[in-house]
């Protein structure tokens, strides 16, 4: 999977309450959720998210298990998230909803807001200004789930292959 996009840079410890507050969790509709991402820090965020790659620091997505955090970011048009580290639950939720996420320990030092970068998910490489940054690529079942577009499609494919 090769992904290209412009960088939106965020800090450390981006939590799920900031991504999508609990008051929106009574719904799972992606279009509705996308309107509200990061609204408490930037009500216009969803307008600039389309085609972006989020670059962030430590434990991105920490906090709640709310899968709407991953659904909302994907529905807003964000193509991938690269972070120094992820909270375990968010990482799984992202893969399960077909949102590419990659652990890139050096990424915040090498990439600036607005940079155009190219990401190779399987190989775990990011190209920025002719420089290659190494990340932890996605392999195995996680890659299969991501390629299927998420866990629901993955499970449906498994079922129809058996039948």
């Amino acid at each position: 999977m090769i992904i290209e996009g412009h960088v939106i840079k965020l800090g450390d410890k981006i939590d799920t309450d900031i991504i999508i507050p609990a008051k929106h969790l009574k719904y799972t509709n992606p279009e509705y959720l996308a309107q509200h991402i990061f609204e408490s820090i930037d009500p216009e965020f969803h307008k600039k998210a389309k085609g972006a790659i989020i670059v962030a620091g430590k434990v991105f997505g920490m906090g709640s298990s709310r899968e709407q955090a991953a659904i909302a970011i994907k529905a807003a048009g964000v193509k991938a998230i690269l972070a120094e580290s992820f909270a375990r639950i968010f990482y799984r939720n992202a893969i399960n909803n077909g949102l590419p996420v990659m652990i890139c320990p050096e990424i915040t030092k090498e990439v600036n807001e607005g940079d155009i970068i190219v990401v190779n998910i399987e190989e775990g490489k990011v190209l920025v200004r002719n420089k290659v940054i190494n990340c932890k690529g996605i392999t195995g079942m996680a890659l299969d789930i991501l390629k299927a577009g998420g866990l629901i499609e993955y499970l449906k494919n498994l079922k129809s292959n058996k039948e």
Partner: protein
Amino acid sequence: MTQTLTEKILSRASGKVVAPGEVVEIKVDIVAFHDLTGYHVIEVMEKTNMLKIHNIDSLVIAFDHLVPPPDVRSAEIHQFIRNFVKNFKVKNFHDVGYGILHQVLLESYVLPGHVVVAADSHTSTLGALGAFSQGMGASDVAAIVITGKTWVTVPQPFKIKLSGKPRDWVTGKDIALEILRVFKADYFNGMAIEIFVENPSSFPMDYRATVANMGIEMNSDTIMFIPDVVTVNHVKNTRGFEPKIITPDNNAKYIDEYTIELDKVDLLVSAPHSVDNVKSVREVSGTDVDYVFIGSCTNGRLSDFEIAAKILKGRKVKTRCIAIPASWSVFKKAMEFGYIQTLVEAGCIVTYGTCGPCIGGHFGIAAPNEVVVTTSNRNFVGRMGSPHAKIYLSGPAIAAATAVIGKIAEPGDVI
């Protein structure tokens, strides 16, 4: 070859000897969800066209986030899940008025050595019993309901030793905040924290549940208290039988160890807007406070209300005060001991078994620029209502003393 508690439980659950870093498929002993994530779990099950339950005995459902329903949509969510319960004859179902899921699991379902997964991050609470517990999202939980299995990366084990005895008024919350003060919120990412209590009776089950609850705020993969006599007694008292317990081998290998001398830990708070922004209560004492919340899956247990009642007895609160025991069972015991009467006479609003205030859902929302002292688990921006509210986390002693004084205070300022 020696094994840690994490490795023993995951070896049993995967049917092979596991090592840290490996990705393994494991059987799940208890799978659970509540109302706010539960409807999402069922939606995912419907979309996969595999609407079936692998093992009806292992599934637990409790309503707690939208309790009692604050609006029509919430009531519809309850109705939707009740229909699922009826259609699939779910046995372990707890409707409005029973308790917060993690407390219900602690009181009635989880045993030491279990693998527990629920669609809520604070599932880490069950580590209090020495169970391998993880919160997961709705899709992962749906897959477990359908298949009985999931995959995990075996975490790196880290050992924390608790020695000595906590000072007066210092409880589980202060110890959780001490761990966050020392290590910060990102240190334990990818690790399993195993906690060994040198003098088991110095750290009762309620304190253990608070620390394990906050294990997710430490971003640990899981957190477990190594089972001991306190664990055994908890199961005897709540279930009426003596459980088998698993403990790590002597000389099991940990990537690192850290000892907390309990008698050296101060009364602590997390200041806005990060759980690891930990300070001694004296650094912030005198800060004006509008609203105090005592309760939640973090600190809504009997010993929390015992402490609050000791401080509030015969006094009146100066802040708004909302108190919520985590379950019907805790509420009833608190009533029998007179704690509820004390809280009501002091001017607190008391109900039970709802998560409303902690998630900024309902039953007490913070306004812009208000200052909140809460015994719950997160002080993120906007967590309890307005993103312009300031949230301090504390244990029950600081919360109750603050309610009496109207400013951040400690019990010595009141008694």
